[in-house]
């Protein structure tokens, strides 16, 4: 213990070389930047409020009327695909809801914290959150890794084929992934790796949400239920622990990221499992549509001529994040609309951020691949 104390004392004595000169140089730069800074002019709010009110009215009107296209035009008139959201903030400063984003970019996955700060995890692919945001599963060639949220590997597993599409089960105890043409499952601590199915389609498997769990509920069929697409195209649902085959539900199928199911290409189930957000291509436009399972309470939150990416739900289910590559923007759209009011509940407004590609691919000359949001979780650390 005395050695620890001595070591701690020695660490406190460490210094950088040339500290005084570095400080003098830095102060010159900072004083100059401070003198030249431009005072921040608060953006006029009236235009934004009018925009949001229009979006709110649009959403309500669409909810009440099948003639959604006309109102969709109203929204898209505001969001020009060439210029993007005009009041977008120049850089990602903070998230509108609690939680952390996992973002895949040219350089690898990033974790973005609520205050807008971000961390590059390393040169990995196919990053995905663990359900409670404590770890990230990612791949590197033939390796599957569990990473700490700062990118430090917790464990590594070597596969026989190239590894893709890891998906962490909502229980937290299983990870499904594709290895070559195989579908495999491994425990959350990297043990017990085993083949689940050979010769599967190159589609990311999807776990069934477990929803709220009662203390007395120990029924095994609720947990670790996986849906995947077999080599012959058949959609299969199986309890990976018991091996029991189950009938795929509509929700199971909706979880799969199969292309072009019912005209929709991209979808995400809300955190409480009650609603489905879809990006649909309708009449040459991309629409962000939210509805309850079964098509109830359908509402269009956004309609643009440009292609959108996503969507991703905030952990509290109150926001949807969509990407807008043509405008190089992210849009955070309030997902909850008051029943009788013309504004999103709580007075929330659309929040837009500009120059997204550059922020996730710093230092690279020329255009960058538009980053993809791989998840938004509220870490339970």
């Amino acid at each position: 213990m005395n050695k620890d104390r001595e070591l701690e004392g020695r660490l406190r004595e460490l210094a950088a070389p040339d500290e005084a000169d570095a400080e003098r140089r830095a102060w010159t730069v900072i004083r100059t930047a401070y003198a030249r800074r431009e005072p921040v002019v608060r953006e006029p709010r009236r235009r934004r409020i009018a925009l949001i009110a229009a979006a709110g009215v649009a959403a309500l009107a669409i909810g009440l009327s099948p003639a959604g296209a006309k109102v969709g035009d109203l929204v898209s008139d505001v969001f020009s695909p060439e210029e993007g959201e005009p009041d977008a903030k120049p850089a990602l400063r903070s998230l509108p809801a609690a939680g952390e984003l996992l973002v895949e970019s040219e350089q690898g996955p990033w974790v973005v914290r609520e205050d807008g700060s971000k961390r590059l995890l390393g040169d990995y692919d196919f990053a995905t959150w663990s359900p409670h945001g404590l770890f990230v599963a990612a791949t590197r060639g033939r390796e599957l890794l569990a990473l700490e949220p700062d990118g430090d590997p917790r464990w590594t597993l070597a596969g026989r084929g190239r590894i893709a599409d890891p998906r962490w089960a909502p229980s937290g105890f299983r990870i499904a992934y594709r290895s070559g043409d195989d579908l495999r499952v491994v425990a959350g601590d990297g043990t017990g790796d085993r083949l689940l199915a050979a010769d599967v389609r190159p589609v990311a498997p999807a776990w069934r949400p477990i929803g709220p769990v009662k203390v007395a509920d120990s029924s095994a069929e609720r947990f670790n239920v996986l849906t995947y697409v077999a080599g012959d195209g058949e959609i299969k649902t199986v309890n990976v622990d018991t091996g029991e085959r189950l009938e795929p539900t509509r929700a199971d199928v909706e979880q799969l990221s199969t292309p072009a199911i019912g005209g929709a290409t991209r979808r995400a189930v809300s955190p409480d499992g009650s609603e489905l957000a879809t990006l649909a291509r309708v009449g040459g436009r991309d629409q962000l549509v939210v509805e309850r399972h079964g098509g109830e309470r359908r509402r269009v939150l956004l309609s643009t001529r440009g292609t959108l990416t996503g969507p991703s739900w905030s952990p509290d289910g109150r926001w949807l994040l969509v990407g807008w590559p043509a405008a190089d923007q992210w849009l955070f759209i309030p997902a909850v609309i008051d029943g009788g009011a013309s504004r999103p509940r709580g007075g929330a407004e659309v929040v837009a951020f500009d120059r997204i590609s550059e922020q996730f691919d710093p230092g690279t000359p020329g255009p960058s691949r538009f980053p993809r949001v791989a998840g938004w979780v509220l870490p339970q650390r």
Partner: protein
Amino acid sequence: MAEGLAFAPQSLVEMAADSAKPLLRNVASPPRRRRDQALLRDAQRGSTEALEELFRRHWRRAHRAAYLVCGDPVAAEDIAQESFLAAVRALERFDRRRPFGPWLHRIAVNRAIDFARARAARAEQGLAGMPEAPDPGRPRQISDELTAALSGLVPEHRAVIVLRYVLDYTPGEIAQMLGLPRGTVNSRLRRGLDRLRPAIETGDEGPIR
């Protein structure tokens, strides 16, 4: 709910780390020192003197932390400078209820980690990126050994050690700053100290300052 990872019990490590809170945390503070919030307010209103006091108060620790995490003196100066410039740019929007020091230090340390990681990924870690080798003509200093040992840790572990023992943040604060579980911070502290201890146990081998 668990995430399914098998962890070693951390309770003893956590107790040990928490009980080792720095004793000198407030001793160095001069009496009647103006609070950061007041300086921030004045700097937001255009006071260069207030900004300079903030700078003098926080720069050196940010610079030191950046150097010890990234191991490159030139990059460390840039990182600390850029971090403070980010503060200047965001000055008008800065929420004065938030503590300024941790905000600045978190930016500096995270950027230093990113720098170290990027350099490692590019396999560019040559002589330029390493702490200076001791001049054989001058007496060997224990800080040389310790800095070299520190550079042997991965950047993420270095950052935890630096935040704890150079900047005097608590494990809970470090967990917040780096977005890590507290148990991870504690285990990294424990492992880091174990790795660094040999660096101060070589004291009998030569003239140590």
